[in-house]
Structure formats: C-alpha cells, structure tokens
C-alpha cells in the first residue's frame, strides 16, 4: 500500500521505467524458440507421413496450414483436421510458401507499454514465424517502423535466422508509426502471406483487409499489456498516451473500470468478428503470457 505524499516526479520516473520498449532474446528464450520450431517441424512431418504422395499434392512437401478459401484444390484439404476441428484447412506446400511471406511488426511507442512490453511479446512470435518461414524455404520480409519511416528487410536463407533475430533485438518501441502506416508499404503486395503483429490500436480492422484480395493468407496477432486489460487497477491513474503525449486523469475502479472493460471487450469482439468474416486467423493475447500461447494459436495448432 502506497500512501500519498512523496515526490510525484520520482514516481513518474519509476512508472516510466516500468515500461520496456525493447526486445531481448535471452538464451533461454532462444532455446524455447528452437524447441517450438522443432516441434512444429515434427508435427508437420507426422501429418505428412506416408500419405504424402497422394494427399500432399503430387509429392510436394507441405509446410503449413491455412484456412480453406473458395477455389482451393480439395486435394489439399486436411480432412483429419477438418474432422477434429470442424474447420476446413488446406495444406500450404513448399512451393506456395516459397512465394514470400511478410511479417509486419508494429513498433510504435504504444508497443512499449508494460513490462515486458508488447513489442517483446510480438517480436518473440515474429521470431517464430521467421524461423518457420526460413526453414520452409520462404523469403520472409520483415517490415517495421523506425523514426516514422517504414523499414523492411528480407531474409531468404535459413542461415539468416540469427541475423533476423538480431534485427528484431534492435527494434525499439517509439514514434507513432503503427500497423496502419506499415500496411501502405508497396513491397507487401508481393507477399502471399501476411503476418500482422501489434497492438492494433491505431488501425481499423476494415483497413487491415483493404488489400486482402491480393493476399493468399493472413494471420493477425494482437497484444495488450496487463494494465490495458484493466486487471490489477485501483484508485486513480493519470494515463498518458506514449504516441500522442495526451494525458487523462481518471478513476480506474468501480463503474469507470467496468465501462472500460466493456468497451475493450466490444473492441476485441469487433476484431474477432471482422477477422472471422475474412477467414483470417486472429488472436488477442496478454503481453505477459509465454510466447508459446500466442504462437500455438496463430500457427493454427489448436493445442499444445
């Protein structure tokens, strides 16, 4: 219990220090990433198995699954998964995957909220996608914002994974360029799969899918800091938007908190609804949760 008094500036500094807008892949995290991709590879092989020649589409190795879309070859439909999940998925073959993937990572200042920050959580999942994509032979385009400009870097070979991780570790949550601005990058239109990762607070769902017809597959991951879920709050707060600098002093309990949580639930439901309508895999996660939780859902594994 903290009582009134004391230095307000010192406390503000301390609160600011709680937020972490950087990315760091510890050795333990790297091992977990490696373990995750290995498990994913094992699962892929098990699913492909001996039926590869007949179910895999002319003997091509499939490396991923995506939701079924009208016009897809029914031979690529994963019937076993359909029976289990009651949702149609088609296998993505190495040839298709090799076309190009784009990982759009939000690095705006709001991604630095919380400790660990949302950027750390999103970058961990981005690393998983990078590892899987490079292992599958895909060209992976990593797109992010830096100093209000769109930056992109392409990774082609599996050996570039450590370089990709270093790139991710160099990212800092700053500026106001979010997913909305990143999606305007022309290079994205060359990619068949888009993986959009961020807090999605600066973009409307409809805008995200404006160029959906050019993209074969899309995955959307959203992260919120624990305090943004409304948990653990009481008393009053002076909120500051890290991007615009606007401030708001309000109570964070009672009816105000209830109304906030209701509004947030409506917002997330809107995202879920729009993504479902576009047959896009979507998940919203707590930034403090292990990256495996988000990765499993965004990779369409259903369970661990």
């Amino acid at each position, binding site marked *: *219990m903290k*009582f*009134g*008094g004391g230095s*307000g500036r010192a*406390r*503000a500094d301390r*609160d*600011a220090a*709680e*937020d972490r807008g950087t990315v760091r892949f510890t050795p333990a995290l790297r091992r977990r990433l490696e373990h995750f991709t290995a498990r994913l590879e094992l699962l892929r092989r098990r699913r492909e198995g001996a039926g590869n020649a007949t179910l895999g589409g002319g003997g091509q190795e499939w490396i991923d699954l995506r939701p079924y879309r009208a016009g897809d070859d029914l031979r690529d439909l994963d019937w076993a998964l359909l029976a289990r999940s009651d949702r149609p998925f088609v296998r993505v073959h190495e040839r298709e995957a090799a076309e190009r993937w784009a990982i759009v990572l939000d690095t705006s200042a*709001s*991604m*630095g*909220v919380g400790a660990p920050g*949302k950027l750390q959580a999103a970058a961990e999942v981005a690393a998983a996608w990078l590892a899987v994509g490079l292992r599958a032979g895909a060209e992976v385009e990593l797109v992010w914002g830096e100093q209000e400009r769109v930056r992109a870097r392409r990774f082609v070979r599996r050996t570039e994974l450590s370089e990709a991780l270093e790139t991710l570790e160099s990212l800092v949550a700053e500026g106001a360029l979010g997913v909305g601005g990143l999606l305007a990058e022309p290079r994205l239109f060359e990619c068949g799969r888009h993986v959009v990762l961020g*807090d999605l*607070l600066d973009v409307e769902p409809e805008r995200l899918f404006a160029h959906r017809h050019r993209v074969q597959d899309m995955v959307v991951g959203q992260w*919120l*800091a624990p*305090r*943004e879920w409304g948990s653990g709050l*009481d*008393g*009053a*707060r*002076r*909120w*500051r*938007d*890290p*991007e*615009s600098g*606007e401030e*708001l*002093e*309000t*109570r*964070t309990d*009672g*009816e*105000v*908190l209830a*109304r*906030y949580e209701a*509004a*947030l639930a409506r*917002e997330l439901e809107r995202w879920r609804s729009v993504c479902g309508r576009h047959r896009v895999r979507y998940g919203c996660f707590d930034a403090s949760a292990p990256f495996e939780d988000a990765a499993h859902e965004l990779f369409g594994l259903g369970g661990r």
Partner: protein
Amino acid sequence: MEFGFVSALVLVVVPLGLLALAFAPRRPRRQTTGTLALWRRAARDATASGSRRRWRPPLWLLVAVAGLFAWVVALAQPRALADDREEWLVLVDRRPRMLLPTGDGRTRLEAAVERAVELLRDERGGVRIRWSTPGLPDRVTRSSAPPPVREWLAAPPAARAPAFAAHDEPGALWVLAREPLEQVTDASVVTSGGPAVPGFAAAGADGWSWWEPGADGGALELRPAPEGAGTLVVDAAAPRVLRAFAEVYAGVRGLALVEAADDGTGDAEPRDAEPRNAEVRGAGLADGEPGAIRLVIEAVAGGAPLADGSRVETEDGAVATVSAAFALPPGRGAGRVGALAPRATATGADAVVLTVGDGRVRVAPGAWEPLDDASFAAALGALFDGVLAPDPRVVPAAGRADQGEPVARLRSLPDPLPVAFDLRTPLALVAAACFALAGVLRR
C-alpha cells in the same frame, strides 16, 4: 475510565497517523497506455451517469487501523469505573395497610418509600436500588431517580407481604408500616409510622372486629354482628326482570328483600341504605350501631341504557353480561381509603355465605328483553356474588393498628460492587478480530 499505563497512549499517534495518511489527498499514479481513447470514453460515460466519486481508503485499511487503535488502548491497561458503589434490595410491603393515610395526606406507602430513598441517598450516596414487591416485577433505579411508587399505587394492592424473612441479609432494606415483631439481624428497616386508623377490621363468626384507637395505643374491639343475614334492597325503578331475580337471589342467599319506593326524591330507602360500616368517605365510622349488611340494587337515572338486555353497566363502569358476570375496572378504588375498608363477611356454618362490598349494584333503567333464564340467572348471580365477594383490599385489624414513629435504620451494608473492570482482554480480542477481518478483506 482510567488507565494503568497512561504513557502507552502516546502510541495512539500511530493509528491516527495511518488514518491521516490514508485520507490524505493522493496524486494519481502516472502510467502509459495504448488504450487512452477507451479510458476517456469510459470516464466520460461514468461522469455522465453521475457515478463519479471521491477516493476513499480501502475498507481493510480502516478495519486494520481500528484494530491497531484498540490494541494501543489495551496497552494502556484501561479500566472502566462502575457507576454505582453498591446495590440494595428494597422489599416493599404493598398490602392494603400501606394504603391507609399517615395523617399528612400521603399513604403509608408513599411516606415509607420516600424515607427509604432519602436514607440511602444520605447515607450511601449514589447506589443502585432493586425494588421488589409482591405481584409486580422488580424495578431497578438509582438513588437519585424517583421510585416507581406511582406504578404501585395504580396497581391492586398485594394480598401478601414480601418474603422479609428470606432476605434478612446485608444490603436488604425492608419497607413496611411498622417495625417487624421478629428479630432482625442484618436487614435494614424503614417504616412509615403514622397514626392507627380506627374502623372496621374484619368480620367473624362471633362478631365484627373493630379497631378503636385510644390513648394507650388503642385496642381491637369485638362488636356483635348485625342481626340477620343481611338485606337486599331493590329499587322500585329497577327492571322488573332484575327485581324478579333479586327475589330469588335473596331467598337463596338468605337475604331479607326490601323493595324501596321510588318517590323521585332521592331519599328513598335504598339511597339512604348505605352500609353503615362502609368507610367509603374515609372518615372512619362514627359511634353507633353498625349497619346491616345490604346489597342495594338501584336504578340510576341517566345510566347507560341496556343494549340488548344481556348487559348491565353500573355507574362506576362495572359491567355484567350474561357470559361474564362482573368486572371491576382496573385500579378502581386503589389508593383510596374508602374502597379498602368496607368489607364484611357473614359466615355460615362451613363457608362464606354472603359478603358485602360497597353494597350496591346500580343498574340502568330500560327495557330488559326476555332472556335465557338459565344464563341470565347465572350471570346476575355471579354479579351479585362478585359484589359481595371477599376482597384482598380489606385492611385487617393488624393493619389498622400499625402506628408509631417512623423508623429509618441501616444495618449491614451490601458487598461493594466492583470498582473497575479490566478492559485489556476485551480490547485485545477486538484488536485481534479487526486484524483477522482486515486480512480477509485484504485478500
């Protein structure tokens, strides 16, 4: 309240300080969020609905501070001081003799109770008094408060004395008319004193007991009973059916039946036939022959008309119905001398045959409807018997003989009440309960 370790009270500043800090204005915590727009909307909606409220400390903190306060006070070894030093048990004789006058207009009861309170107040200061009297619940007052004597006067007098002998003990105070004849060792005594009251005391088979005060203290005189069993005087204006029943009743009860002429002057026989032994006016009985035992049934002008022929209402409000014969209104005559004295009993061989009260049944004139004979006879019979029935308010010979100077004497004192109660344990328990509750609330 007093404290054995006053210095410990300095620690009260700890909970008080915590409380002050808890209520002190707080600067809100600054934090960043990406959902500022949602917070702004929520705050605006909440303000619009009037739900904005000031910050207040959590309940668990207030409970914990209360526990801390109790604990600090317990450290100071508090003791609660008792209000009263001692408690006296005052036994009040409320028999009819205590309702006789003392000569200054008060009853013996009022004089004695007032004297008892004065005695305790003067001798013992502020004490607690437990008043006990037969027939009524105990009352507890302080010596500075008025005793419940009005309540006692309004109630019917007691038929028996308090259990004085069982309370010959320290702290017991007897309030009665005169000093007890038996040996008293520990109980204190207050008597009313007052003059002996002349008059009829009791009736017996051999005659009537009559108290005659004299220079030597007075004596009980046995006078011959009136001749005959008694007289039933019936007003000519009384309803016919009542007169018919009176004739039967007089025959059954052995009364001589006399029908008074209604000459409208008010001087007819029944109106003058008030029993001579009745002290209805409280002046005692003049010398002369005691009157005959009479039961007067008279019509009273202006009385309430009979409603349905099954109800008799007297001037005094006494009501007889076919089903419930007779009822004296509560408190009738209580505290009045006249209502106490005039009771006589005519005796038969083995049981009470007749009694005479104030000797009158007053009935309202009116048309008495034909009634069920049996129930009517039973009702009126009970009514007349009620008028004649023995009454606990009769003052016996001993009561009339009570006299002498008032006495007010304290003997053995009661054990003193505890001066102070140690409050450490209760306060420690309160503190522990508060801490436990605060822990639960905090969780």
